[in-house]
């Protein structure tokens, strides 16, 4: 029975913890070769540097080989081939498909058409579960636990898929949330309803300063221009928050700053040298978590 990872909610709490434990093993020893002889397709229908390189490195470090494309313009997709036909063809060649596509729901559809496991590396503004798992891993590694943490999410909470998925995944671990966002980019009602149903506490604020000093994780996000349909709305909010080192004098000692990257102006470079900055290490963690996801779905861990 093939198992795919399309949405973070496809994984139970136990599976999430299993993948995080496996990632610890790969962080200790990142040179593995138990997937030797396997071929994995990385098919990216829209450009992505970080996610693609991270996945391809993960495949290589497990001993498997990568085929694929990083841009659909030179493929038969540009001749009008349907996604179904592309997936049918590729899944006949390989042991797993890792895919990114600009349309939402494309990965779920691909997993229904494919004969091999599919890993969603981002379907438009919908889901990006490997990002969520590496966020969880980073939280676990910096705090020593996942339970009973106070997480302050900052920035674009309306369109930002990373915050939505992280919220869903953290709901297994009795968290408390702070949502710091301008009026235009507040956390959507359906996610707040989700928390209410689960009895999880949250507070909302427009001020970045208000909950800097009492959170364990400060999860900063970029305001993504590409998600806006109205350019005026983007101009109004693009520089709304800017974190600087001078604002961190009274934060909790265990507090860590996470950011899915790339950042623009929301974190000043002077924050990089503080002990609270964790976002570069967080990106590195993506490698171990993706190695763990691939190993788990192929039945090797």
């Amino acid at each position, binding site marked *: 029975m093939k198992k795919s990872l399309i949405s973070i909610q496809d994984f139970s709490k136990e599976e999430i913890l299993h993948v995080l434990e496996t990632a610890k093993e790969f962080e200790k020893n990142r040179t593995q070769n138990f997937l030797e002889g396997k071929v994995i397709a990385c098919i990216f229908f829209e450009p992505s540097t970080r996610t693609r390189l991270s996945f391809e490195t993960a495949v290589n470090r497990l001993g498997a080989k990568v085929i694929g494309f990083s841009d659909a313009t030179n493929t038969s997709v540009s001749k009008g081939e349907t996604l179904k036909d592309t997936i049918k063809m590729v899944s006949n060649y390989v042991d797993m498909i890792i895919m990114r596509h600009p349309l939402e*729901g494309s990965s*779920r559809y691909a997993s229904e058409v494919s004969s091999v496991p599919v890993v969603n590396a981002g*379907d438009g503004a919908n889901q990006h579960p490997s990002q969520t798992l590496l966020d969880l891993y980073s939280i676990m590694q910096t705090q020593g636990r996942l339970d009973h943490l106070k997480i302050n999410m900052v920035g674009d909470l309306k369109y930002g898929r990373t915050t939505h998925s992280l919220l869903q995944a953290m709901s297994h671990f009795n968290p408390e949330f702070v949502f710091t966002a301008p009026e235009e980019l507040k956390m959507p009602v359906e996610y707040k309803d989700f928390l209410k149903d689960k009895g999880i506490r949250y507070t909302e604020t427009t001020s970045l300063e208000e909950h800097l000093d009492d959170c364990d994780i400060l999860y900063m996000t970029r305001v993504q221009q590409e998600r806006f349909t109205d350019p005026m709305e983007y101009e109004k909010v693009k520089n709304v928050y800017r974190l600087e080192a001078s604002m961190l004098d009274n934060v909790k000692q265990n507090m860590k700053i996470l950011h899915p990257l790339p950042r623009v102006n929301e974190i000043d470079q002077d924050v990089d040298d503080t002990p609270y900055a964790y976002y570069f290490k967080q990106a590195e963690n993506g490698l171990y978590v993706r190695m763990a996801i691939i190993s788990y779905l192929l039945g090797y861990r």
Partner: protein
Amino acid sequence: MENVNKELKVSALENGTVLDHIPAENVYKALDILNLRGIDNQITIGINLNSKLYGRKGIIKIADRFFADDELNRLALIAPHATVNIIRNFKVVEKKQLSMPERIEGIARCMNPKCITNHQPVRTRFTVIDENGEISLLCHYCEKRSSIKSLF
């Protein structure tokens, strides 16, 4: 009972199905949701009829056609209080109440313009969410909610 008999005389349906208490404005949608456009059966349609309970209602009578329950239950999406009368030999032999389907396939469009189902030949699939009578549809693919108004 007297009321029912009067209605039956009007259309004189010998065998078939009567869909009553459809909101007047949703009669055309009801025809679509049950795939009744273009079929050869005799169909009698009433719109803006007086109803003691609902003000104005619609009614659809289809001769020689009987529906499976899951087919009929789709109607609950746009006419939750509709009643179904099965007619055989001019008599009502069965009355049915609709129940809201949990899932629907192939009969609604996703409202999200970036959803894969609006760009590729993918059959739509939704989970029906009923929040105190407010019906919305959760797309199986893009995981976004569409309001019931996006049906057709």
